[in-house]
C-alpha cells in the first residue's frame, strides 16, 4: 500500500465500483485502471513475461510495459490491456496476468531466482534458439508446454467475441495525429480554413502533456485554454475529433489507420483516414533509466507520477524519490512537495542541474544528490528504499553507496519523440545529440512533424511550429489557415540532458520491461555476434512487446552502440512498422465474420432445393446442392443412387453457377477463333461447340461450351471457378491486345438460371415439359441450340452432355428459372425424374472421363488431357506459340488416365501419389497423382482420374495409389479415362 487518493485532479465526482481479481475497488469517473489501482493502494498488478517478477504501473500512457491486465471476462475478455489506457467503467472486471495463485505470491517467480544464480540461464537472450534443442521428442511433450506455462501474458478467450466492431472510411484535407497542445493548435488553425480536419488522440482527455500540469489556480488560465481549444474544435462542423483513437499506422497514399474505442453498441471502430496533408503532433515519451531492479513496482516514469497526482488525483506514494539525467523530472519532485507529499531525494546523474532547480529543491527542503545515481531499487515486492551512489567523473563506476528511503521512485532518462508515423512515410529518423533521441529527418511528402514529436519540448515553441505547419498545409491545398490564441503560459522545453544509458552497477537492469530483456542481454547479444539493431531486436525480442519499444529502443541501441564503440547515430534504429500499438483483430474483421465473412451466392432454385431436403455445399461462392438424401441415406448411398438413376432414367441438376458470357459484334467469331484453340468462325447458327482456351504459355486455361445464336452473337459458358477470371481476360484481350476488333463482351451469369436434364428419358421429359419445342433427333441433334418461350420465360436449350448420357442444358431467365425447373420436374414424374447434386454431377463426369478444375489445375497441356488434336492448324490462337515447347510435349509428361481399384470396393483417395511399388516409402519414384475419385455404380467399382507419367501408353498396368498420411496403399489398374460409353453413342441417341 503506498498510493492513495490525493486531491481531485481533473476527475469527475461520480464514484465507480470495479473489481481487481474479484476484490472490490473504488474509482472516480475519468480514472484509468492504472490510476484507480494506484489510488486503491495496489502496487503489484501482475507478473512479468519470463521471470515472473512483480510488476506495477510504470507509466500513464501507451508506453505502459508493466501494468498489463485482462479487462472483462468470458468472450469479452481483453487480455494484455494496458491499465493506463483503459478507462474504468461501472462494474468493470479487471484481472491480473501471468501469475498463480496471485500477483503478490507467484509460484513461477523461481524463474527469476534461477536467472540470478545461473549466468546465461533459462531465459537469457536468444533462449528461443538455444535451449531445449535436444532431444527433439521432448519438445512437444515437455519443453513447449512448460515454457508456455511459465512465460506468457494474458490468456486469450476461448469463446467467440460477442462484441460488434465497425470499419469506417474517412476522407479529410488535414489529419492531425495527437491532441496535445501542438496538435490542438494545428487542428484549430487548419479548421479555420474551412478544410476538413480530423484529429486523433489515443487518450480519453485531450491535452497531452498539459494534463501533467497541476490543476491549480496558478494554472487556471492554461487549463481554460485547453478546454476552450477543445470546445472550439468540437463545435466546428468541419472537424472530427477522435478521442480514444490510436493512430497505429500510416500507409501509401497518405492513409492513416486507427482503432477507436467507443462506448455503446459497437466496441471499436477501425478507421481508415485518407488525408491530403498529415500533421504529426504525437508528442514524446519519457524514457526510463536503466539501473538495478528498475522494473520493481512503484518505479515509474517521472511524468507519469506527475500526471497521476495532477490529473488523476492519485499520489503514487507517501515518500517520493526522483532519479534523472535531465531537467524535466524536477517538476515531479516540486509538484509532489507542493502537494504536501514528502520528497526524500532528487538524484541527478549530472554534475550541476542549474541554479533555478537547485534553488527549487532548496526552498522545498528537498535533498539533492548531484553526480549521483540510483544503483538499485530495494524492497521485497515494491520499492521501499533505493540504494544510491556517487558516479565517477568518467561515468564508469560508482562509490559511496548509501540508502535513501522512499516508496515510489520517479525516474527520467530523457524524452523520445514519437516518430513512428513520420517514419512509416519512408524516411528513417536521425539522431539528435541535443536531446539524445531520434527525430524526424527529412519529412515524408505531405507530412509535417511538429512539437515534441519533432524534438521541440517547449510549449509555445511547439505550438508555434504546429500553427506554421497548419498554415503551410492549408496553403498547399489552396486555403488559408487561421491564427489561434497561443497558450497563456510557457513551459521551457530545454531538458539539458546528459545521457546516462546504463548505471554502472550490478543487479537486474531491465531495458525492455515487458519482455524481460536486460542490459546484460544486450551485451550478450553483442558478444554472440548479433550486433546490428535489427538482429538485436530479434535475438532478444527487445521492443517486440505491445509498447513496441517506446521506452526500450533508444536505451538498448545506445548500450549496443557503446559495446560496438560506435556512435548512436551509426548504430541506427530498427525499422518502424505498423501497428505501433496493439490493435484488436475484431477491428480488422469488422462485420465480416461468420456468415458475413464472404458473400454467399444462391441460385434461383435455392428454395426448391431446400424443400427437397438437399444437403448444400459451398462451391466457389455458390451454395450448391451436394446431394438429396432420401430417408436415412448417407452421402454415399445418395449419390450412388442418383448416379445410377441418371444413367438408367433421368435426373435434373442445378448448373446455374457456370459462368455465362455473351459475345456480340461483327468480329465476335474472329475473337473466339483467337481465344479458343479450335474454330468458332465455322460454327453454324443454332449450334454449340466445346472449346478450350490456353494461356500465353500454352497451359490449358479453361474450357466450356459456346453456342452461336446469330451471325454476330455467341453465348459462352465457362467453368464455375473461372467465370470471373475468364471475363476479365476477355475484356483485357479486347481493350489491350485487339482494340481493332468490334466486339463487346457482357457477363450474363446472373441473367440465366441453368439446369442440366440428363439420362435416357431426358428427351421424353423435356418434350412433355415444353410441347412447343421439337426435341426429335432430326430437329434438335446433339450440339444443337434451340430458343423457346414458356409461360413468359425465355429459354435457351442446348443439347450438350457432361454426364455422357443424352442430356440437355436448359437456360431460363432467372426470375422464371424455378418455374421452369418445376415444369421439368412435373413433366419428369412420368419417368421417375430425380434431382441430383454436385456429388453425382462429379461421379457422372468422372465415369465419362471429362475434366474439371481438379484436372485443369494450371499445370496441364493439351496433350496431357488428350486434346492436342483439337487445336486448329489453320489459325493462330493464344498459347499456340509456346504449346509445342520441348517440355510441353514430352512423351513422359504425366498424362490423364483412368484408374480402377483392383478390389472394386476399395476407394482411391484424391491426392494419392501414383507409385509402382506396393509399399512405397518417402523416397519412392512418384509417377503421378490422383485428381478426382468416385464410386461408379455403372462399373460397380471405385474409379478415379489421375495423371501418370507417360500414362497414354500404360493402359493395363497395375500400380499403386499411395496416401502415406492416411497409411493407404491401393492397388489400381490403369485404364482409359473414358470408363463409360467410350464411343460416345449415348449422347447422340
Amino acid at each position: 500500500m503506498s498510493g492513495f487518493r490525493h486531491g481531485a485532479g481533473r476527475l469527475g465526482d461520480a464514484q465507480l465500483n470495479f473489481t481487481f481479481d474479484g476484490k472490490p475497488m473504488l474509482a472516480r469517473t475519468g480514472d484509468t485502471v492504472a490510476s484507480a489501482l494506484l489510488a486503491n493502494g495496489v502496487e503489484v498488478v501482475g507478473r512479468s513475461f519470463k521471470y515472473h517478477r512483480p510488476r506495477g504501473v510504470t507509466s500513464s500512457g501507451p508506453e505502459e510495459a508493466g501494468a498489463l491486465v485482462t479487462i472483462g471476462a468470458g468472450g469479452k475478455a481483453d487480455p494484455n490491456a494496458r491499465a493506463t489506457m483503459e478507462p474504468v467503467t461501472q462494474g468493470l472486471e479487471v484481472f491480473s496476468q501471468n501469475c498463480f495463485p496471485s500477483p503478490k505470491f507467484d509460484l513461477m517467480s523461481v524463474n527469476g531466482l534461477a536467472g540470478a544464480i545461473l549466468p546465461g540461464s533459462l531465459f537469457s537472450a536468444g533462449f528461443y534458439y538455444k535451449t531445449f534443442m535436444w532431444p527433439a521428442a521432448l519438445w512437444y511433450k515437455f519443453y513447449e508446454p512448460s515454457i508456455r506455462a511459465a512465460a506468457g501474458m494474458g490468456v486469450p478467450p476461448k469463446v467467440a467475441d460477442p462484441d460488434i466492431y465497425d470499419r469506417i472510411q474517412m476522407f479529410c484535407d488535414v489529419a492531425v495525429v495527437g491532441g496535445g497542445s501542438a496538435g490542438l493548435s494545428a487542428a484549430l488553425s487548419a479548421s479555420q480554413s474551412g478544410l476538413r480536419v480530423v484529429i486523433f488522440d489515443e487518450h480519453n482527455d485531450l491535452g497531452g502533456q498539459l494534463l501533467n500540469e497541476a490543476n491549480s489556480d496558478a494554472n487556471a488560465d492554461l487549463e481554460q485554454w485547453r478546454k476552450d481549444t477543445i470546445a472550439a474544435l468540437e463545435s466546428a462542423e468541419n472537424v472530427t475529433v477522435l478521442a480514444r483513437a490510436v493512430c497505429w499506422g500510416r500507409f501509401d497514399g497518405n492513409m492513416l489507420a486507427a482503432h477507436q474505442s467507443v462506448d455503446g453498441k459497437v466496441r471499436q471502430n477501425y478507421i481508415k483516414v485518407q488525408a491530403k496533408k498529415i500533421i504529426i503532433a504525437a508528442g514524446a515519451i519519457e524514457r526510463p533509466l536503466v539501473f538495478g531492479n528498475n522494473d520493481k513496482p512503484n518505479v515509474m516514469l517521472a511524468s507519469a507520477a506527475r500526471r497521476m497526482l495532477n490529473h488523476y488525483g492519485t499520489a503514487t506514494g507517501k515518500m517520493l524519490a526522483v532519479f534523472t539525467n535531465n531537467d524535466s523530472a524536477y517538476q515531479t519532485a516540486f509538484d509532489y512537495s507542493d502537494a504536501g507529499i514528502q520528497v526524500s531525494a532528487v538524484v541527478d546523474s549530472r554534475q550541476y542541474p542549474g541554479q533555478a532547480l537547485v534553488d527549487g529543491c532548496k526552498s522545498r527542503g528537498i535533498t539533492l544528490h548531484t553526480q549521483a545515481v540510483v544503483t538499485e531499487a530495494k524492497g521485497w515486492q515494491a520499492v521501499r528504499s533505493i540504494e544510491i551512489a556517487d558516479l565517477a567523473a568518467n561515468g564508469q563506476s560508482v562509490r559511496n553507496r548509501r540508502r535513501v528511503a522512499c516508496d515510489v521512485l520517479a525516474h527520467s532518462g530523457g524524452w523520445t519523440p514519437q516518430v513512428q508515423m513520420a517514419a512509416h512515410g519512408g524516411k528513417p529518423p536521425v539522431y539528435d545529440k541535443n536531446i539524445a533521441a531520434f527525430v524526424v529527418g527529412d519529412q515524408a511528402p505531405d507530412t509535417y512533424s511538429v512539437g515534441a514529436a519533432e524534438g521541440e519540448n517547449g510549449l509555445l515553441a511547439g505550438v508555434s511550429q504546429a500553427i506554421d505547419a497548419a498554415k503551410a498545409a492549408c496553403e498547399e491545398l489552396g486555403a488559408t489557415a487561421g491564427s489561434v490564441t497561443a497558450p497563456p503560459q510557457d513551459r521551457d522545453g530545454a531538458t539539458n540532458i546528459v545521457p546516462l544509458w546504463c548505471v554502472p552497477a550490478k543487479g537486474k537492469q531491465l531495458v525492455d520491461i515487458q519482455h524481460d530483456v536486460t542490459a546484460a542481454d544486450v551485451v550478450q547479444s553483442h558478444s554472440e555476434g548479433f550486433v546490428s539493431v535489427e538482429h538485436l531486436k530479434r535475438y532478444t525480442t527487445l521492443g517486440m512487446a505491445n509498447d513496441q519499444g517506446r521506452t526500450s529502443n533508444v536505451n538498448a541501441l545506445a548500450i549496443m552502440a557503446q559495446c560496438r564503440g560506435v556512435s548512436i547515430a551509426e548504430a541506427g534504429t530498427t525499422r518502424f512498422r505498423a501497428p505501433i500499438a496493439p490493435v484488436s483483430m475484431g477491428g480488422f474483421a469488422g462485420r465480416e465474420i461468420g456468415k458475413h465473412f464472404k458473400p454467399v451466392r444462391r441460385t434461383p432454385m435455392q428454395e426448391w432445393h431446400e424443400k427437397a431436403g438437399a444437403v448444400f455445399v459451398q462451391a466457389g461462392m455458390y451454395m450448391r446442392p451436394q446431394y438429396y438424401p432420401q430417408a436415412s441415406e448417407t452421402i454415399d448411398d445418395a449419390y450412388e443412387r442418383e448416379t445410377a438413376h441418371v444413367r438408367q432414367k433421368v435426373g435434373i441438376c442445378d448448373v446455374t453457377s457456370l459462368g455465362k458470357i455473351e459475345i456480340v459484334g461483327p468480329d465476335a467469331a474472329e475473337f473466339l477463333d483467337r481465344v479458343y484453340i479450335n474454330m468458332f468462325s465455322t460454327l453454324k447458327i443454332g449450334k454449340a461447340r466445346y472449346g478450350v482456351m490456353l494461356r500465353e504459355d500454352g497451359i490449358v486455361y479453361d474450357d466450356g461450351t459456346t453456342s452461336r445464336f446469330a451471325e454476330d452473337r455467341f453465348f459462352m459458358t465457362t467453368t464455375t471457378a473461372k467465370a470471373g477470371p475468364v471475363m476479365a481476360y476477355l475484356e483485357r484481350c479486347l481493350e489491350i491486345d485487339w482494340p481493332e476488333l468490334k466486339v463487346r463482351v457482357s457477363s450474363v451469369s446472373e441473367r440465366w438460371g441453368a439446369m442440366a436434364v440428363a439420362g435416357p428419358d431426358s428427351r421424353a421429359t423435356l418434350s412433355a415439359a415444353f410441347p412447343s419445342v421439337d426435341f426429335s433427333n432430326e430437329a434438335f441433334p446433339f450440339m444443337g441450340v434451340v430458343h423457346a418461350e414458356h409461360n413468359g420465360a425465355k429459354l435457351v436449350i442446348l443439347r450438350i452432355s457432361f454426364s455422357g448420357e443424352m442430356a440437355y442444358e436448359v437456360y431460363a431467365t432467372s426470375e422464371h428459372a424455378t418455374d421452369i425447373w418445376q415444369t421439368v420436374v412435373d413433366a419428369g414424374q412420368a419417368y421417375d425424374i430425380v434431382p441430383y447434386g454436385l456429388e453425382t454431377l462429379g461421379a457422372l463426369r468422372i465415369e465419362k472421363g471429362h475434366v474439371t478444375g481438379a484436372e485443369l489445375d494450371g499445370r496441364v497441356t493439351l496433350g496431357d488431357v488428350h486434346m492436342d488434336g483439337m487445336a486448329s492448324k489453320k489459325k493462330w490462337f493464344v498459347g499456340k506459340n509456346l504449346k509445342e515447347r520441348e517440355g510441353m510435349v514430352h512423351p513422359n509428361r504425366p498424362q490423364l488416365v483412368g484408374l480402377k481399384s483392383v478390389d472394386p470396393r476399395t476407394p482411391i483417395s484424391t491426392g494419392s501419389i501414383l507409385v509402382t511399388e506396393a509399399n512405397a516409402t518417402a523416397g519412392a519414384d512418384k509417377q503421378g497423382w490422383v485428381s478426382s475419385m468416385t464410386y461408379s455404380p455403372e462399373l460397380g467399382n471405385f474409379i478415379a482420374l489421375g495423371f501418370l507419367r507417360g500414362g497414354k501408353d500404360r493402359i493395363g498396368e497395375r500400380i499403386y495409389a499411395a496416401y502415406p498420411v492416411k497409411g493407404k496403399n491401393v492397388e489400381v489398374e490403369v485404364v482409359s479415362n473414358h470408363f463409360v460409353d467410350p464411343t460416345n453413342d449415348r449422347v447422340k441417341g
Partner: protein
Amino acid sequence: MIRINCPYCGEREHSEFTYGEDATRTTPDNDAPMEEWNKFVYERDNPAGEHIEYWHHAFGCRAWLKVQRNTITHDISWVGLPHENPEATS
C-alpha cells in the same frame, strides 16, 4: 492505400482494382519464333522506380487502365486508357 484515378469513375482505392501486368512489353507477332514468345512470356523486368502497368477496374467500371506507378514509393503519377501513354517526364 494506393489510390488510382480512373478516367471513367474518378479516384478510387486500389482494392477496387486488380493488377494486370507490365504494360511496357510488346506482344510478338503471331508468327514470331518461339524464342521471341518465350522471352515475352517469361523474361520480365523488375524495375525499381517508375513503371507502367495495366490495372483492371474490376469492382468499378471494369475498364482496363494503364497506370504509371513508382514501385518504390507506390506513387501513381499517371493513369490513362490502354492505348494512351504518359507524356515523357524529365
